[in-house]
C-alpha cells in the first residue's frame, strides 16, 4: 500500500516534469487563477497576513530569499546565487542576485532584505513573518524595543548579506513564504505604497477590487529570462466550492481546489478527470489526546483508540479517498518519511485488550472537540462513535467553529480534538512539536514528553549531515508513533482541477494552491489566450 502511494507520488512528479518538458511554453494570454480559502484577500501588504489565501497573490507580486522546489521537495535559493555556511552552522553568507529588479526598475540590494526583515519585527504591528525572522540573532531585541537593528543581519556589500541564526538549521525553511517577502526599502515607507505595491515577483500589480479580484501584468524585467509566459494574471477569491465548480465547468477560471465530494464527481467525468493534479500535502489529520485527562495519560489507551477506529473505511467512504492513510506523524512528502512504519491495524479485540490492561475494561467517556470541517471535523467524529462504542468508549461531541479551534487547542481546553496540522516541509521543525520543552501554545498540543525523543531531536539539530539528520528524525518519529499521542488519521491529498489549456503547474506539497506563476502558461485553446 505504502509503496503504491510513494510510487504514485513519484509518478505524479515525473509526469508533471515530463509534461512541462514535452511542450514548448507559449507566451501571452491571461491566467485566471482562484484563491479558494476565503471571499477576499486581507490587504495589498503580504507581510500582514499569514493566511494561504494571501500567499496566493504574494507569489505573483513578491519574491523571497528562498523558494520551494516542488519537484525536488526542498527549498532552493531564489534571490541569492549562492550561500556559504560557517563551520558552526550559524552564519550564512548569501551572494545576492544582482539582476533582481523591483517593479519600478530599481535593483534589489542587501539593504532591502535587511529593511524587510527588520520591518517584520516591529512589535507594534505583530507581523506573522516575525515567527521566522526571530530565528535571526538579535531579532527579538528589535521586537522588544531594545534595538533598532537586527544584529544578525549584516550587509557585507550591496549584493552580499550575512545572516546569523540563533540555532542551526536550513535557512530555506525560514525565508521562503510570502510573509517574508522582500519589499523595496525606500519605496515601501511611502504611506501610499500599498495602494499600488511593487515587488520583485514575475507580475506587476495592476488593481485590487477587494472581494472580487486582483489583477497583475507581466513584469518584463523579471530576472528569469523568458519568464513569466502569460501577459496577465487574474486571481479571484472564491471561498464557495459550489460556485468555483460552476465557474470552472463554465471555463471562467483555469483552476479550482476540490473537496472530497467534488473530487469524486470530477473523477467520474471523463473530461474533467484529465485535468486533476493530486499531491500528498504536508498536513497530518489527527485526533490529539490531552494527557491531563486521566485515561489519555496511559499509552495503552491511546494505542487502543488507534486500533479501535477503522481509518481506512472512513477515508474511503467519508473522505472519498481524498487522503492517504497516516502511518506516523511525518507525511509521505516529508524527506524523513518512514516507509517502514505500518499503520495501526483496525483491531477492536486488541483495542479492548489494551483498555483492560490499562484499567478500563468497561471503557470510559470523553469529550471530543471538533469543527464542522467535512474532512477532519464533526462528520469524521460521528463516524468513529460506533467504532469506539464497540470497545466501550463513549464520545461526547463538542462542536466548535473552525476559526476558534486553534485557540481552544493552544490553551489546552480540551480532552480530545480533531485537526489538520502541518507536518512539513521541515521535518526537524515538525518533530520539535513533540519536544518536551516546546510549550503547548507553540504546537506541542498534547504536551508530549519523552526523553528519548528529546535526545534524538537534539541530535538531529546538531548534525549538519541532512541524510543523517533525517535518519535520526525517523527514529524520533517512530517513537512518537508508538507513544500515540494522537490518533493518526490521514495525510491530506490535495487535489487541484485545471483546464486543459493551463500548463506548468507544480505539485507543491506544502500547499497545492501556491504556484509559481512564472512557470504557468496557457495554450491557444484558452478562452483568455489573447
Amino acid at each position, binding site marked *: 500500500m505504502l509503496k503504491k502511494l510513494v510510487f504514485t507520488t513519484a509518478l505524479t512528479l515525473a509526469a508533471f516534469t515530463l509534461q512541462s518538458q514535452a511542450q514548448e511554453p507559449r507566451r501571452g494570454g491571461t491566467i485566471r487563477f482562484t484563491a479558494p480559502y476565503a*471571499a477576499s484577500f486581507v490587504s495589498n501588504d503580504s507581510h500582514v497576513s499569514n493566511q494561504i489565501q494571501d500567499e496566493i497573490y504574494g507569489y505573483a507580486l513578491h519574491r523571497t530569499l528562498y523558494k520551494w522546489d516542488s519537484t525536488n521537495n526542498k527549498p532552493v535559493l531564489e534571490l541569492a546565487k549562492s550561500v556559504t555556511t560557517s563551520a558552526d552552522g550559524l552564519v550564512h553568507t548569501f551572494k545576492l542576485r544582482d539582476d533582481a529588479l523591483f517593479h519600478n526598475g530599481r535593483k534589489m540590494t542587501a539593504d532591502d532584505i535587511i529593511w524587510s526583515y527588520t520591518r517584520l519585527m516591529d*512589535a*507594534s504591528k505583530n507581523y506573522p513573518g516575525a515567527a521566522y525572522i526571530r530565528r535571526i540573532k538579535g531579532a527579538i531585541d528589535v521586537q522588544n524595543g531594545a534595538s533598532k537593528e537586527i544584529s544578525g543581519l549584516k550587509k557585507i556589500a550591496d549584493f552580499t548579506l550575512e545572516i546569523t541564526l540563533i540555532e542551526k538549521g536550513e535557512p530555506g525553511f525560514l525565508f521562503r513564504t510570502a510573509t517574508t517577502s522582500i519589499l523595496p526599502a525606500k519605496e515601501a515607507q511611502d504611506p501610499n505604497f500599498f495602494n499600488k505595491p511593487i515587488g520583485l515577483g514575475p507580475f506587476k500589480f495592476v488593481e485590487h477590487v477587494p*472581494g472580487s479580484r486582483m489583477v497583475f501584468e507581466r513584469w518584463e524585467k523579471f530576472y528569469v529570462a523568458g519568464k513569466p509566459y502569460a501577459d496577465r494574471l487574474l486571481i*479571484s477569491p472564491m471561498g464557495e466550492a459550489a*460556485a468555483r465548480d460552476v465557474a470552472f465547468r463554465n471555463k471562467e477560471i483555469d483552476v479550482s481546489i476540490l473537496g472530497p465530494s467534488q473530487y469524486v464527481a470530477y473523477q467520474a467525468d471523463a473530461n474533467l478527470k484529465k485535468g486533476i493534479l493530486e499531491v500528498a500535502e504536508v498536513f497530518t489529520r489527527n485526533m490529539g489526546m490531552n494527557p491531563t485527562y486521566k485515561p489519555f495519560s496511559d499509552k495503552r489507551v491511546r494505542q487502543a483508540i488507534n486500533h479501535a477506529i477503522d481509518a481506512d473505511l472512513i477515508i474511503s467512504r467519508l473522505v472519498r479517498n481524498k487522503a492517504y492513510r497516516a502511518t506516523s506523524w511525518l507525511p509521505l512528502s516529508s524527506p524523513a518519511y518512514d516507509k517502514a512504519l505500518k499503520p495501526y491495524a483496525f483491531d477492536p479485540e486488541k483495542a479492548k485488550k489494551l483498555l483492560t490492561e490499562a484499567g478500563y475494561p468497561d471503557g470510559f467517556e470523553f469529550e471530543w472537540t471538533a469543527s464542522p470541517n467535512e474532512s477532519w471535523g464533526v462528520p469524521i467524529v460521528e463516524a468513529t462513535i460506533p467504532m469506539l462504542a464497540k470497545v466501550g468508549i463513549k464520545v461526547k461531541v463538542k462542536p466548535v467553529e473552525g476559526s476558534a479551534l*486553534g485557540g481552544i487547542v493552544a490553551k489546552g481546553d480540551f480532552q480530545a480534538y480533531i485537526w489538520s496540522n502541518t507536518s512539513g516541509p521541515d521535518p526537524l521543525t515538525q518533530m520539535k512539536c513533540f519536544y518536551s520543552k516546546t510549550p503547548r501554545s507553540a504546537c506541542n498540543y498534547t504536551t508530549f514528553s519523552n526523553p528519548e525523543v528529546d535526545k534524538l531531536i537534539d541530535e538531529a539539530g546538531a548534525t549538519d549531515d541532512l541524510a543523517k539528520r533525517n535518519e535520526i528524525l525517523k527514529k524520533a518519529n517512530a517513537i512518537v508513533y508508538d507513544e500515540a499521542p494522537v490518533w493518526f488519521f490521514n495525510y491530506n491529498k490535495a487535489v487541484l482541477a485545471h483546464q486543459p489549456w493551463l500548463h506548468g503547474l507544480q505539485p507543491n506539497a506544502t500547499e497545492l494552491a501556491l504556484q509559481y506563476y512564472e512557470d504557468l502558461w496557457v495554450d491557444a485553446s484558452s478562452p483568455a489566450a489573447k
Partner: protein
Amino acid sequence: MLPYVIRRLIQSVPILLAVAGLVFVMFSVIPGDFASTQMADGRSVVDAEQVARMNTQFGLDDPVHIRFANYVGKLLTLDLGTSFRTRQPVINSLLERIWPSLQLAMAAMLFAIGVGVPLGFLAALKPGGWLDMQSMIVAVSGLSLPQFWLGLMLMYGFALILGWFPSFGYGDGNPRYLVLPAVALGVAPLALLARTTRAAVLEVMNADFVRTARAKGNSEARVMRWHVARNAAVIVLTTLGLQFGSIMGGAVVIEKLFAWPGIGSLLVDSVSLRDIPVVQACILLLVLFFLIVNIIVDVLCALIDPRIKYT
C-alpha cells in the same frame, strides 16, 4: 415633515448604540479571538507570547467594560477603529465595499418591485384566475427557496447551460455581472411583494370609496390608477421598507456565493477571522441602511397618502 425626519434620525442613534452593544457582547462571549484564528489553517503557530502581544495591540486584554467604553467613545466621534486583519482604519474597508453592496441591493429591489408589484396587481384583478394561481405559485416558491440553492441553480441554468451571464465576479461595472446575484437576492422580496400587493389591491378594490368612484362614472383605468393603486401603494411601500432588511441580510450569502465585493462578503470573512471592529462596523452599516430606507419609506407614504400626517 422635516422635523419628523430629524426626529427619526435622532431616534436612530439609540438603536445603533443598542445594536453596537449587542454585537459587542456577542463577540465577547463566543469562543475564539483574532490571535487564535491566525492558526486556524493548522499551519501557522501563534505562541502564547504572540497572542499576548496581539491582545495588547488590539486592546483585547482590557476588561470588557473598559473595551466597551473605549468602543462607544470612539463610535461617538465616528471612529470605527482599526481592522485587526489589515491594520488599516475600518472605514477604508467599508468605503471600498459600500458601492457594490448598494448596487446589488438596488438591483435586487428593482427586480422585486418591477416583477412583484405588477404580478400582485394583475393577480388581484381576477382573484382565483390563472394568473392569480401562477403568481401565488411564484410567491410561495420564492419565499421557500433557500437563497444559496437558488443562486446555485441560477448559475447552473443561466451561466453554465445557457451561457447568458457570467457565473461570478464583479466585472468592470458591466451589468451582466449583476443580473444573477440580483435575481437570487430579489426573488424572496419579489414573492412577498406580490402577495402583499395582491392582498392590498383586493382590500382597496372592495372599499367604499372605490365603489363611490365608480358610481361617479370614473373610467376603470382612472379608478385603478388614482384610487386603487395609490391607496394600495402605502401598504406595498411599507412592506418594501421592511424587505430591504431581508435584502441586506441575504446579501451576506449571495455576495459570498457570487464573489461579489460588497459588505456581506466582508462581514463573512471578518466574522470567521474575528476581526471584531470590521464586524461591528458592517453590522452597524447594515442597520443604518435599514433605518434610512424606512425613514424614506415613511416620507414617501406621507407624500402618497395625504391622510398620513407626521408632526
